[in-house]
């Protein structure tokens, strides 16, 4: 087991260095200059531009800049945003909890609905329920979520007025960030009104972001369950006269969960993609929106640092999923 973990780890480090290099090079290839972009209609005097480029270190050869970047990164310094002059890491720290809160809630939403739906669909195969779940989930899977978000806003926020339109919490609540997760911070504060406000702000973005994972989980659960239900040991258990519920809940589900867990792990990368769109539409103060702005402003340090941190997180989650999978299923351990 340890060897398996170590081999996986040894793959992670070169991948990470590869990401730093790829991201560094890609970002420098983007045409445009952060200083010029900021200058607006006024433009900027060439002499001052040259001076500023020196001040920001853009005048050095790319390789030197990359080396400097790596060595600073080793000390935990990801540089400062060119637009705001704040350290990238501290901006990330303020914004990341919002993204996490949204993503975790979206995944929970997807699991809570997708798992039971998939199980029931499998058990009642070819029933109306099964067809309904499969039809809906395929629709969800095909959904352009940016459009889905607009529709939900139009219906629930504008027409019915049930949910807030954007943001994380109503402005009248003054919550000092402790963890950065508003659902937790409001409870620490003991302010239930604020908690409800935070919750109601979460509803639509969570539905939007959770739609695709929900569809995927429901489909995966159904097919995994179908496969397991066809196995001999299930038939044996049934034949022995065990209650139907017990067979499904204990014997079948446990084995069917293995592929489902993998799929959930794989959804993490997908979630970030969805988060970029969801945050943009709902003005959710998270990392996705920050990165889009970073691209528009040619804010190299933000883009670089943000992409790296997200890449690192995706890698760690994938690693954990791999390890967990290896633990559940010994065959995988020796496959490589």
């Amino acid at each position, binding site marked *: 087991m340890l060897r398996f973990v170590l081999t996986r780890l040894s793959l992670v480090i070169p991948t990470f260095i590869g990401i730093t290099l790829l991201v560094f090079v890609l970002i420098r290839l983007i045409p445009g200059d952060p200083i010029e972009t900021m200058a607006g*209609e006024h433009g900027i005097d060439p002499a*001052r531009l040259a001076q500023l480029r020196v001040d920001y270190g853009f005048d050095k050869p790319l390789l030197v800049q990359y080396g400097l970047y790596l060595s600073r990164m080793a000390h935990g310094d990801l540089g400062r945003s060119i637009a705001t002059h*704040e350290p990238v890491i501290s901006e990330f720290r303020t914004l990341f909890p919002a993204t996490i809160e949204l993503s975790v809630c979206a995944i929970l939403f997807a699991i809570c609905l997708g798992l039971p739906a998939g199980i029931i669909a499998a058990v009642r195969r070819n029933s109306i329920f099964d067809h309904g779940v499969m039809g809906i989930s395929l629709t969800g899977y095909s959904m352009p979520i940016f459009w889905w978000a607009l529709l939900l806003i139009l219906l629930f926020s504008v027409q019915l007025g049930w*949910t807030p339109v*954007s943001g994380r919490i109503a402005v009248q609540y003054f919550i000092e960030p402790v963890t950065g997760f508003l659902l937790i911070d409001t409870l620490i504060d003991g302010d239930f009104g604020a908690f409800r406000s935070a919750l109601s702000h979460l509803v639509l973005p969570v*539905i939007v972001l959770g739609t695709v994972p929900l569809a995927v989980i429901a489909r995966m659960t159904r097919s995994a369950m179908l496969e397991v239900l066809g196995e001999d040991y299930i038939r044996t258990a049934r034949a022995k006269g065990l209650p139907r519920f017990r067979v499904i809940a204990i014997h079948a589900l446990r084995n069917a969960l293995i592929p489902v867990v993998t799929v959930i792990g794989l959804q993490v990368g997908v979630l970030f993609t969805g988060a970029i769109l969801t945050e943009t539409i709902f003005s959710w*103060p998270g990392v996705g*929106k920050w990165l889009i702005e970073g691209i528009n402003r040619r804010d190299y340090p933000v883009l670089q640092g943000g992409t790296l941190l997200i890449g690192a997180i995706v890698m760690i989650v994938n690693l954990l999923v791999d390890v967990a999978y290896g633990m559940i299923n010994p065959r995988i351990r020796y496959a490589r």
Partner: protein
Amino acid sequence: MDRSILLAAVCASALVFASAASAKTLVFCSEGSPENFYPGVNTTGTSFDGNEPIYNRIVEFERGGTKVVPGLAEKWTISPDGTTYTFNLRKGVKWHSSKSFKPTRDFNADDVIFSIERQWKESNPYFKVTSPNHSYFGDMGLPKLLKSVEKVDDYTIKVTLDRPEAPFLADLAMPFAAIQSKEYADAMLKAGTPEKIDQDPIGTGPFYLVQYQKDAVIRYKAFPEFWGGKAKIDDLVYSITPDASVRWAKLQKGECDVMPYPNPADIDAIRKDPNITVLEQPGLNVGYLAFQTQKKPFDDVRVRKAISMAIDKKAIIDAVFLSTGIPAKNPIPPSMWSYNDNVKDDPYDPAAAKKLLADAGFPNGFETDLWAMPVQRPYNPNARRIAELMQADLAKIGVKAEIKSYEWGEYRKRMQAGEHQMGMFGWTGDNGDPDNFLHTLLGCDSAQSGGSNIAKFCYKPFDDLVVKAKTISDQAERAKLYEQAQVIFKEQAPWFTIAHAVQLKPVSKRVVDFKLSPFGRHNFYGVDVKD
């Protein structure tokens, strides 16, 4: 997600909202996060808005106008040759305090000198703190204009200029000239955290900063010891809401009281809302289509005129600006002094345009390019869409225009280098002086490659007028020269003037005495709310 929970949540938030109204709170749905809390390195109006409650300048623009009035300086005198300014500073002005710093003294001359030198002198230890890019200080030409800034005594400052410059006082009233505390700066320098003064700001303004959460909210509280008297509202909240339609929805629901930059498409609905007033004022800006007058075929005034007559300006206003813009005929906005209302705009007349084009030797039209900026600007809500309309109009007189665009920084640079044939651009006034439009955008000085004269228009009779006006200090006399210049401008048609964006500000009826700033800034001192 259960529906009953949802309903409960909505009801609960409504209840709390009602009770929270007792302390006077004004919520401004701002359009974005400020860059930081040091206006000297800021480049966006959004950032200036975020800093407006906190800081003062030695002179200020009067609320809702462009007139320069006393700020931290009570009065000033200008030497007869126009090069020496002596400012008498206000006494007893208190600084805010923060968790990490309590001021021990009132505002004085050292603070003014520090705030200017920080942007001016590379030797100042704060020159590079936060950013060495003091954009506006440079854009206004101050590094070359300033000769010396001296402290006469604790409450007197003497500024000497290299040459007389009529708009200098107005420059000092601009947001970038905010005054910061030298005592705070020194303390933070000693503590090894100089950038703190730009993150936890301390100013002399009517409000102090309580909390800032990037992309979410900025909270201020009224500063009781403000030298002009405590603000009428107690709490000022900027609720950061980038999407225009969402801002409108929030205003409608009472979640905010003032919103900037409404969506042109929503204006009709907003006007119908009984709880909302829409304040409006023509902005200090102009959006235009510049012809590269040094390139064929646009070196021929007949071609420029023909294009100007072929484009349906009204359709552009109706489709893109809707009620957020008024058609432009002069290069300066109508609210600016010296605006010449006698100038007649070229009529929309495709037949005459076609004839004129034939006279100029292009009976079958020609091929050209049409540049459209990739981003929304205050003077142009959607350049792409305008370009599509222009393209369709020009096709009718045989001119094939290809729409081109580049990344915004690149776009401006290429335009300033004169690489285009026709291109859209625009300008927002910095200090309310016509010179800032007519000389900066159309004078020979800036027509060289890289200059801000996008049309590369250098026409002696015009240039003579605007250069002469720069050296005269009498406004009435200057106005006459500028009026003549506008007549020549129309004859020569270096631009097709598109529109002046109108500043529209939907404001809740509970807000009392909010005044529009011609510069598009938002100032909440003096504003009250009623319940």
